[in-house]
């Protein structure tokens, strides 16, 4: 009898241990990433903190900017599927080719990305300072310029700041870089080429782009008022860039308005 009782006790203990292991495993799986984000601060490597803090925000803003023709808040746009899409080339006249509205698109996008991250930049560097203060440091930061660069296959954001720590000797960190994988640079090159066609012929042949660039899908959606919405999609990443153009519009049927 005693032996049997021991055995059932052992089984119970094993069951409890198993349940505890499963619960701990589940907790680790669901909660650990958050714990790590909150507390995973490596005082030796502040750049990694800034990268983690800003990466998502930059990605989201880049996506919004790309879907809106290169602007975070389009000023002159066409409403397509409830989205504002900036005109990169436009004429209000029929039978005429368009006037380029954004000739320096790459620089414009870089400036838009820069402006879109001002708040999160401030927030992330404040968090960084706070982390150092919590570790007993006395961090000092010298502000500098922010540079955004669209580069092949990536977007590079550089915060030209100098961080100094004085607790254990003087430590100095500068040029905080955040790199986001993205093919916006390549897409902008193709957008410029389409705009060039629009200025010369009032139209662009999407087939030739899809023939030359196997990983690219180019869609052209003509609208009632003569506007054309172009949608460029990178097939592997599903990254998109949308923009509008109105060029060489033909009045509908017998219409003679705007002629």
């Amino acid at each position: 009898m005693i032996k049997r009782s021991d055995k059932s006790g052992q089984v119970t203990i094993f069951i409890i241990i198993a349940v505890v292991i499963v619960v701990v495993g589940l907790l680790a799986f669901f909660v650990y990433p958050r714990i790590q984000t909150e507390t995973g601060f490596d005082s030796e490597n502040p750049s990694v903190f800034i990268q983690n803090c800003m990466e998502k925000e930059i990605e989201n803003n880049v996506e919004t900017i790309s879907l809106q023709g290169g602007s975070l808040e389009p000023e002159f746009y066409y409403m397509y599927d409830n989205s504002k899409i900036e005109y990169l080339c436009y004429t209000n006249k029929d039978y005429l080719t368009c006037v380029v509205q954004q000739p320096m698109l790459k620089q414009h996008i870089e400036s838009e990305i820069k402006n879109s991250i001002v708040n999160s930049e401030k927030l992330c560097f404040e968090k960084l300072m706070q982390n150092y203060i919590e570790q007993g440091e006395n961090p000092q930061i010298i502000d500098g310029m922010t540079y955004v660069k669209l580069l092949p296959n990536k977007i590079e954001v550089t915060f030209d700041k100098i961080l100094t720590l004085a607790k254990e000797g003087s430590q100095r960190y500068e040029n905080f870089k955040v790199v986001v994988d993205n093919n916006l640079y390549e897409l902008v090159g193709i957008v410029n080429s389409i705009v060039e066609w629009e200025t010369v012929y009032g139209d662009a042949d999407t087939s030739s782009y899809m023939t030359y660039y196997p990983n690219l899908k180019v869609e052209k959606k003509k609208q009632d008022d003569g506007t054309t919405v172009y949608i460029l999609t990178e097939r592997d990443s599903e990254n998109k860039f949308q923009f509008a153009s109105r060029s060489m519009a033909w009045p509908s049927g017998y219409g003679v308005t705007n002629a």
Partner: protein
Amino acid sequence: MRKKFLMLLFGILLFGSFVFLIQTVSATVCAEKTLSGAWCQDVEMYEVDTEHRYSQTSCDATSYCKLGTCINNEEGTCTGNTAQKTCEQNNGFWKAGKPVDIPQCQKGCCLMGDQASFVTQTRCKMFASLYSVTVDFRTNLGNEFMCLSSITSDVKGACVFGESEEFGRTCNFVTQKECLDSEGEFHTGILCSAESLNTVCGPSDQTTCIPGKDEVYFVDTCGNIANVYDSSRRNDPTYWTSVVSVENSCGYGSSNADSKTCGNCDYFSGSTCKAYKRGQDVSPSLGDNICRNLDCKYEGKTYSHGETWCATDTKNNDLPGSQHYVLKCYNNEVTVEPCAVKRAEVCIQESVEDFTSASCRTNMWQDCTSIDNEKDCLNDEQRYCEWVKDYEWNTYPAEKDSGVCVPKYAPGFDFWNAESEAESICGLATVTCEVKYEKGLLDGWDVVANEECLPGSSGHKEWLNKMENVCSAIGDCGSSLNYIKQKGYNELNVTKV
């Protein structure tokens, strides 16, 4: 007298103010910026953003909206049709004239190893620093196609490194420059798996896809690229010894799509290297990659990769509201491209050996009704029209051998608008048919001419169809259903007078 003079003066002033007001309100102004945010547009005064420059003239005649070329010195690009301000506000450099007339905007072929791009010399130099490659800028390759066709790969070969106790004789398959930089022993055109090199690398069943290349390649045991995947030569030592060109590899000249044994894919022929997907691809005999078939299936029909074809909302004719579309098959996916609305553009397609090519083209219907002979009417290079025999505008019956020219693709217009010219446009096809009766000898009246115009008479249906066809050919006129099969408001009436 004085009172009369004052009244006249007042009248003149009033008239003058009125004329000035009319001019101010209706004259077109060149706005540097409009209230909606557009740059350099000819608009009405009320649309002008008065914080920017504007003047009562066409933009072509202004200095501030004169169009020229915006040169981006940083990127080496030139953008035409650009106003000076939009260029300079983003640090661009503006020059009058078109890009083709500006020396620094001349394009050439920028060759960068196994890549090429048709760009300006400045941009080519920028690529050199951006990608850290050596570039070769050639001005003798006059267009993009010639440029891309001239790509030649840098010669690669086995780069062997001296024997180490731990790893043995190792090898990398790289270019000569890369090998010399890493102080290896370079063997041009030889694979790392070559037995003669006596390296640790040997043949394997593994395959891979290389970015920028179409083919499936064998990979040796060290992970180096070998020749194009050909399962029949897996155990052939010569195939693992030296580089075999794509042209001399299996199945060259065809797409080899879905081939289990050959990885010589070709994007232009309709295949490209992709990781094998169960359920989508045929399982390869070796490795995990296959020449993915890029053809498309659409409404039960298979279309080749790169094929484009036409579709319309309505099967038979251009009904009110209907539109033409181009459908495109690329990369296993069909995309739909609408042509301009109201048939301002129509889709035209042609086929060569079952391969269809289609595009939206401007509907050239405008002068159809003014053409009076069949030959000119059917000249497809000048216009898209059709000839209707035995028909005359507004005259019935038509003279024998007469005919009229009507649009082949009926243009649409805003017939629902009160201000539209629907009545006058459609009125072109109005026909008055006079039916002649003669008093019979005994009693009653006998029809002696144009009986077909009478409802219920023999031949009435054909007559009505012909009239209706002409009517609907000149635009959204006549009695027809619209593209979603809804009836119009006005039915065709034939009234007996």
